[in-house]
């Protein structure tokens, strides 16, 4: 990224892991997302911001398969750079994914929610926390590793007879879970029900639960909502460590500008389902369209409004 992005607002020249093109989602008469295109860069933190009701969560739901978009393409390129012709070929075929080397191309708009999580390795959290409140913290993280553990249990046959290979796999899963709990300082509460944790801990638990699925792309819907400043700062660290330590790319929706501006590498701004700006934090901060959207006034009135507030 650099000057070009600064000046034009065009996305960074980095190689994308997720490419959203002409995404449209219609609910009856309401166009919640309108012809939206943007990229999520590999190994970076991309933020999706916008006023309430702008359609951010809807974009997430389209990416993670909870909604079927009305039209548009959502391509995930895992493993490494993928060529445009390969994506185009897949789009023309009836297929949903194409494995290439260690990774592959996945057309997420064609896949169901659980397949996206299991095969394309996109994990997410929810705006309203969705933990398994009646299960312990540890159980939450073990459930997140269901697919490979279930396989290791020989689809329950080996597990029923208590095979050694399964017991080892389970110990490994616990090890992974404990490592993540250590990371957010909740190891001591592993045996508490998740619903009994304080709000901030629940948010972080939901994030590491998503990480336990081993994702290449992690989508977080307002992870800082309801957190106090200290918790926000801890969250920033956690997200940066996920980006740097695990090489996971992040896409996050956030209203808390202290989080957004501090940790994101790249920001996409949405208003009424349309993209109004796209660039680095510095660029976004100074984009009059963004300021207008947030203050809800026309461009030229921004200055007046600011003057009034100050005066």
């Amino acid at each position: 990224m650099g000057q070009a992005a600064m000046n034009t607002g065009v996305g960074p020249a980095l190689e994308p892991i997720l490419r959203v093109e002409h995404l449209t989602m219609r609910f009856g008469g309401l166009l919640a997302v309108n012809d939206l295109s943007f990229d999520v860069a590999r190994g970076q933190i991309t933020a999706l911001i916008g006023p309430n009701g702008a359609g951010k969560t809807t974009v997430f739901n389209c990416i993670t398969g909870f909604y079927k978009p009305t039209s548009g393409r959502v391509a995930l390129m895992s493993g490494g750079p993928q060529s445009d012709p390969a994506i185009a070929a897949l789009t023309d075929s009836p297929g949903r994914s194409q494995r290439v080397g260690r990774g592959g191309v996945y057309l997420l708009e064609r896949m169901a929610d659980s397949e996206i999580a299991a095969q394309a390795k996109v994990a997410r959290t929810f705006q309203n926390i969705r933990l398994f409140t009646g299960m312990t913290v540890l159980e939450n993280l073990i459930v997140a590793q269901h697919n490979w553990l279930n396989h290791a249990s020989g689809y329950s046959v080996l597990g029923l007879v208590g095979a050694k290979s399964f017991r080892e796999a389970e110990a490994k899963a616990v090890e992974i879970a404990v490592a993540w709990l250590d990371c957010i300082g909740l190891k001591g509460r592993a045996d508490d029900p998740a619903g009994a944790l304080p709000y901030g801990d629940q948010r972080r638990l939901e994030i590491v639960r998503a990480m336990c699925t081993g994702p290449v792309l992690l989508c977080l819907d307002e992870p800082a909502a309801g957190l106090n400043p200290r918790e926000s700062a801890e969250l920033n660290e956690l997200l940066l460590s996920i980006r740097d330590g695990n090489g996971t790319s992040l896409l996050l929706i956030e209203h808390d500008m202290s989080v957004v501006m501090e940790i994101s590498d790249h920001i996409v701004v949405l208003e009424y389902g349309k993209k109004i700006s796209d660039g680095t934090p510095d660029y976004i901060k100074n984009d009059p369209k963004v300021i207008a959207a947030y203050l809800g006034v026309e461009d030229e009135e921004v200055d007046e409004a600011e003057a009034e507030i100050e005066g």
Partner: protein
Amino acid sequence: MDYFLQQLINGLTLGSVYGLIAIGYTMVYGIIGMINFAHGDVFMLSVFIALILFLLITSLFGGLAIAVALVLVLIIAMALTALWSWAIERVAYRPLRGSFRLAPLISAIGMSIFLINFVQLVQGPRNKSIPPIIEGGFEIQIGSGDITLSYKQILIILTTAVLLAAFWFIVQKTSLGRAQRACEQDRKMASLLGIDVDRTISLTFVMGAALAAVAGVLFMVQYGVVNFSDGFVPGIKAFTAAVLGGIGSLPGAVIGGLLIGLIEVFWSAYFSIDYKDVAAFSILAITLIFMPSGILGKPDVEKV
């Protein structure tokens, strides 16, 4: 052709009864999201009440015209059935408001078991039958054959239409109807705005039961025989009607009722009478699986 028309009339008559019961299911589901499993048995109870009232009134006032007697029976049966339904809601459902989701359903099943056995106990297990109340009808010549439009059928279809119109007026135009719709949308907000939610829900049960009682009186007029176990199957069919029409939708319940009545009658007429209930249950399953929001219901998109 005449056979077809005859079945059509029979189907509409039966469908009117289902539609009236279905409204009770649909309203309660709309407002508290619960399947009032005991509603079919409330209907059965209302048939018994109507039967006893009819016998009582005709024996007390020997010379009374049948029409007057039936109107009296209708009004008193509606009131008494509504009283039962109010009591049921008060005892079995209200304490469970906002609790564990399965609890009201289990409670309703318990209530259903209670009602069936209560009626069996106090009225005995045998069928109760009375001689036909209204006989005769119009013979209409159509093409080569005759069809019969009995007075009973005219009475049933007319009563249903009139009461549905009155009921529609209550739900659309009165403050009670507004309060109901408000509770449907957001119960907490409605109560903050000063709507007595408990009272509104009780009145919903009362209205549903009153319409079930209308169905009960019409059932008595049409068939003149009832058994304590007669609540379950009509109840399920009326529920099917509610689902088919789109649960929560009042016109849907009526349309669903008519459809179920027609399907049942035509199925029995052209295919096999043994499997007519299988047909009803299959329609229920097929509707729920392929068209869970019914004909007029709002699609239920799960918000994430």
